[in-house]
């Protein structure tokens, strides 16, 4: 609709509304003057006016306030609540958000759940809930979650419970289809919990997969006893024939129950007893077995209609080979009439166990050993007995493993298989605690660092190895991809304050295990474990460690795991080299330093990032140089033996004109001496050699760097350099395309020269425009467009770009060298030389490479030669 038309209708509507209803017809006939469309539109709006009497009259501000108030209950990591410190968020449900927290008083990890404000306003209901929750917890049943505290800070009510290392049944069901034996095992344990609770007169009321936790060791825990009481409708609504809508009303402000797991009596809003829990457990069991809910529907009311009226599909129709007894059992839990259901959970439990035992017997009879032995708990006494036997078995197993391991070590030292290269993969974090992720990344990083310091062993760089994180690991495949003889994999699990690390060293030629070991340590001792593992792995790799080398291995980069993790993340970003990535790297390294001000490595990360920001003109090159050098020196002051610090300092001398190659190369070679596997030291040396025109040596170093870190985007780009300078443009382009597969394109100056020489101008221009959408105002991309214009002979456009760069450069002439390049591309020798000279005066000629073809137009000019001398480049 055109605005004028809209105005016309709105005005007519206004006047019509001013007329009494009886006169509107006549008015419209006259006013619309035969425009029937107009008339119909106004008439339909008049009808809407009548229908809209109460429409949106009641404001939604209260509802919005409720939403806001509800949101307040969200906590942030690190926040303190009473004597609990929030560590991370574990999940969120309708009954509140759940966090992993540290009990600072007792020094243990706990789960902390925030109760939604709307459930805590009624003091009486809150009291009843507390009473029931405590009563259930007091049963001290192994399948009932233990409550430590129900408390309140200001307006925030919370429950603190034991922290379960495991996952909710819901998640497990989403991830895999449960085996029948597992489903039965879970049902048995939930039923045991319910039996104990019912005996004490406590009904759960909200049994569902979200409230059932599977602990890593096989125990099942039922959560949230009594909690359902908080959200329930007030008890006076006990009407046998109350409409379903009473419970699931729609409209502003209504609260809904967990419809898919309700019993029919719950859905009707009737009183609830133990048999209601049996129905809900029946639904959960059905879903575990078949993978689908027994009562389905598009909406909550559809589901409720189904559970009130429909019979679920028999199990046999969803699954082959269902024992008849199980079919009957499930049907009996799901009887709509509670009088026909199991009358007590104990009855159900007896049948469940019988079915379970039959199943086990049959499976074993067929000679198939089920992967896990379902725990069957009969009475408390039997449970205890079981527990002891269980542990005994575990102890025996551990002993057996130890014995076998020692035997293996003595007799199978892999004669003749010298391992000269290894990749330490990120460990798998098999705990539910996301905080352990940093261990899973940090420990292998540390091992890999320690091993890098050993001569004669090639250790794949973290950066390359990191891309295998979270993937299914096939050692052979990785071996081929990275070119290593062995890979070390590990899994981290946590149980309470204990940490278990399982390691496996695998031969990549045939996927055979060379060595395996488990470490059980207290969480607090993690650095000691790290040291031990690093030493042990090296031993196993048959390296004769001299005394000095042993000392090196024992060196810890920092005592602070968080600091280490920040550093690792910072380094990962830095490899990508875009402005954003480099800034992120700086921020991570700064955080690492904040955690541990004496952490030398973090300063090296800072130094490298500043160097690279400056050389790309993202910050003033002089500032980049100054900050980079400062950080590198700081790192050396903290620890002279850190290879990365020497590399960083070497980079400063060889990155910024005027160069000091002798000093710089000495630092770089010292870094390599300290840590032969440090890929970036080889990479920096390669770049330095290229700047000096020593292309063969440069090539050799780039190849070493690539071998150590085949997946680093920036190292892949460095390999292009010697080929490009040797004017093998086709090969350079090929390598550049490969590098683009690894990370963001257009992160170095040299790339554009490769495209220009290969004549891929239009294509490159298109890609540049696309990249610009994401990297707005990136001077490197603007330069790229300028140099392509120059190559295309679009003089006016190129000059326009120069103007833009000039503006960006400001008085500090940040992009002077780049402007010189575009002028050279335009064959404007005078301007090219002038800008190059200006750049040098302003300290802006970072990253200069004399052999670059881009300088060919001015190469023979004496002023150019003079410039080289001033920059410290031999001619």
């Amino acid at each position, binding site marked *: 609709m055109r605005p004028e038309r809209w105005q016309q209708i709105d005005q007519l509507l206004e006047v019509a509304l001013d007329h009494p209803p009886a006169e509107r017809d006549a008015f419209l006939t006259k006013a619309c003057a035969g425009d029937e469309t107009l008339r119909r539109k106004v008439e339909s*709006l008049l009808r809407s006016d009548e229908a809209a009497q109460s429409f949106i009259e009641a404001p939604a501000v209260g*509802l919005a306030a409720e939403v806001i108030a509800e949101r307040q209950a969200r906590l942030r990591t690190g926040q303190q609540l009473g004597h609990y410190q929030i560590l991370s968020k574990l999940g969120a449900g309708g009954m509140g958000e759940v966090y992993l927290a540290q009990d600072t008083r007792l020094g243990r990890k706990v789960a902390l759940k925030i109760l939604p404000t709307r459930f805590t306003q009624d003091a009486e209901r809150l009291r009843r809930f507390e009473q029931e929750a405590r009563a259930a917890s007091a049963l001290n049943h192994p399948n009932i979650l233990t409550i430590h505290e129900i408390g309140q800070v200001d307006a925030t009510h919370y429950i603190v419970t034991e922290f379960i290392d495991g996952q909710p049944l819901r998640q497990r069901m989403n991830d895999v289809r449960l085996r029948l034996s597992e489903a039965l095992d879970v049902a048995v344990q939930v039923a045991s919990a319910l039996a104990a609770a019912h005996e004490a007169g406590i009904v759960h009321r909200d049994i569902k997969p979200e409230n059932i936790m599977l602990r890593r060791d096989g125990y099942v825990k039922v959560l949230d006893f009594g909690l359902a009481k908080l959200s329930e409708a007030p008890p006076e609504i006990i009407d046998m024939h109350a409409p379903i809508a009473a419970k699931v009303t729609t409209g*502003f402000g209504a609260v809904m129950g967990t419809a898919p797991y309700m019993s029919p009596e719950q859905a009707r809003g009737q009183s609830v007893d133990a048999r209601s829990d049996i129905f809900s457990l029946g639904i959960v069991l059905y879903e575990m077995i078949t993978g689908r809910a027994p009562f389905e529907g598009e909406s909550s009311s559809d589901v409720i209609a189904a559970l009130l009226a429909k019979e679920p599909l028999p199990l046999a129709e969803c699954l082959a080979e269902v024992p008849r007894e199980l079919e009957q059992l499930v049907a009996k839990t799901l009887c709509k009439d509670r009088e026909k259901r199991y009358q007590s959970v104990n009855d159900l439990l007896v049948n469940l166990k019988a079915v379970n035992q039959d199943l086990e017997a049959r499976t074993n009879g067929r000679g198939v050993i089920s992967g896990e032995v379902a725990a069957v708990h009969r009475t408390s006494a039997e449970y205890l007995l079981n527990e002891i036997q269980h542990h005994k078995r575990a102890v025996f197993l551990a002993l057996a493993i130890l014995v076998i391991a020692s035997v293996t070590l003595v007799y199978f030292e892999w004669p003749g298989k010298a391992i000269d290269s290894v990749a330490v993969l990120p460990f798998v974090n098999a705990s539910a605690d996301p905080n352990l992720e940093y261990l899973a990344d940090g420990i292998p990083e540390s091992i890999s660092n320690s091993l890098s310091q050993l001569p004669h062993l090639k250790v794949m760089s973290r950066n390359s190895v990191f891309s295998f994180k979270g993937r299914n690991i096939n050692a052979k495949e990785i071996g081929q991809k990275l070119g290593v003889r062995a890979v070390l994999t590990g899994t981290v699990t946590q149980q309470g304050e204990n940490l278990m690390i399982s390691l496996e060293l695998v031969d990549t030629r045939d996927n055979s295990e060379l060595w395996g070991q488990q470490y059980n340590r207290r969480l607090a001792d993690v650095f000691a474990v790290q040291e031990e593992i690093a030493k042990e792995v090296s031993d196993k790799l048959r390296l004769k460690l001299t005394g000095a080398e042993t000392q090196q291995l024992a060196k810890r980069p920092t005592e602070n795991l968080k600091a280490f993790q920040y550093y690792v993340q910072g380094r990962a970003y830095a490899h990508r080299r875009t402005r954003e990535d480099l800034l992120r790297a700086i921020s991570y390294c700064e955080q690492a330093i904040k955690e541990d001000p004496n952490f030398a490595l973090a300063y090296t990360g800072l130094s490298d990032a500043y160097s690279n920001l400056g050389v790309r003109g993202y910050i003033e090159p002089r500032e980049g140089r100054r900050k980079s050098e400062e950080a590198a020196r700081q790192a050396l002051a903290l620890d002279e033996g850190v290879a990365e610090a020497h590399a960083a300092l070497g980079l400063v001398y060889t990155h910024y004109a005027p160069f000091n190659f002798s000093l710089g190369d000495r630092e770089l070679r010292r870094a390599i001496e300290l840590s032969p596997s440090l890929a970036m030291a080889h990479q920096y040396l390669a770049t330095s050699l290229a700047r000096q025109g020593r292309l063969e040596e440069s090539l050799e170093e780039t190849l070493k760097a690539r071998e150590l870190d085949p997946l680093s985007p920036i190292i892949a780009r460095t390999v292009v350099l010697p080929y490009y300078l040797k004017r093998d443009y086709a090969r350079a382009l090929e390598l550049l395309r490969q590098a683009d597969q690894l990370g963001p394109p257009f992160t170095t100056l040299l790339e554009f020269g490769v495209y220009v020489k290969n004549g891929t101008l239009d294509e490159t221009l298109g890609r540049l425009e696309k990249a610009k959408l994401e990297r707005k105002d990136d001077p490197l991309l603007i330069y790229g467009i300028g140099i392509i214009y120059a190559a295309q002979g679009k003089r006016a456009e190129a000059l326009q770009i120069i103007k833009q760069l000039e503006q960006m450069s400001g008085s500090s002439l940040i992009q002077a060298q780049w402007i010189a390049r575009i002028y050279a591309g335009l064959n404007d020798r005078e301007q090219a030389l002038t800008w190059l000279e200006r750049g040098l005066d302003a300290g802006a000629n970072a990253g200069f490479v004399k052999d670059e073809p881009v300088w060919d137009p001015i190469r023979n000019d004496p002023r150019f030669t003079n410039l080289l001398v001033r920059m410290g480049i031999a001619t």
Partner: protein
Amino acid sequence: MMTPSSQEVTELLLAWRDGNEAALEKLLPLVYDELHRLAARYMRRESPGHTLQTSALVNEAFIRLIDQQQVHWQNRAHFFGIAAQLMRRILLDHARGQARAKRGGGLHRVSFDEGAIVSEQCAAELIALDDALNALAAFDSRKRRIVELRFFGGLSNEEVAEVMGMSLRTVEREWRKAKAWLHHAISEGETDEA
């Protein structure tokens, strides 16, 4: 948490009025935090089941956040406008979350968030209203503001008139027409036809 000084908030408000868009970005979280605090208090004060229907909340936020000495009464309009928009955004986010949770459940398992403050039906209505309001704003932003202040901000017609500097008569007329347009758009599902 640091409570911003009313000086600071007031300056941001004035800067935004003078066309500084960045000021709004800084202002929004501050207003949100204050609404947060007040909302929790109001919720405690109200008896369960009874919901807030007035602009009291926004009014109080205004008084607490803004230095009254410094601000000309017209600037109330800006503040109330921001608060109402914020309420609208928050409510809609929540409603969309609800709608997504439902859709995400798929055919086999309808996902019910028992913590929903807004029912399925209500969420759908809010989303429809929001769409219609956006369509209306394309032709008449004045009506949009009136609807926001009244429906999401809880202001009365008198308050809207004061805040927007219009006569009560105009507000009433515009409100009535806005309702007709919105109702029409939602019930007929047409928002932009000739």
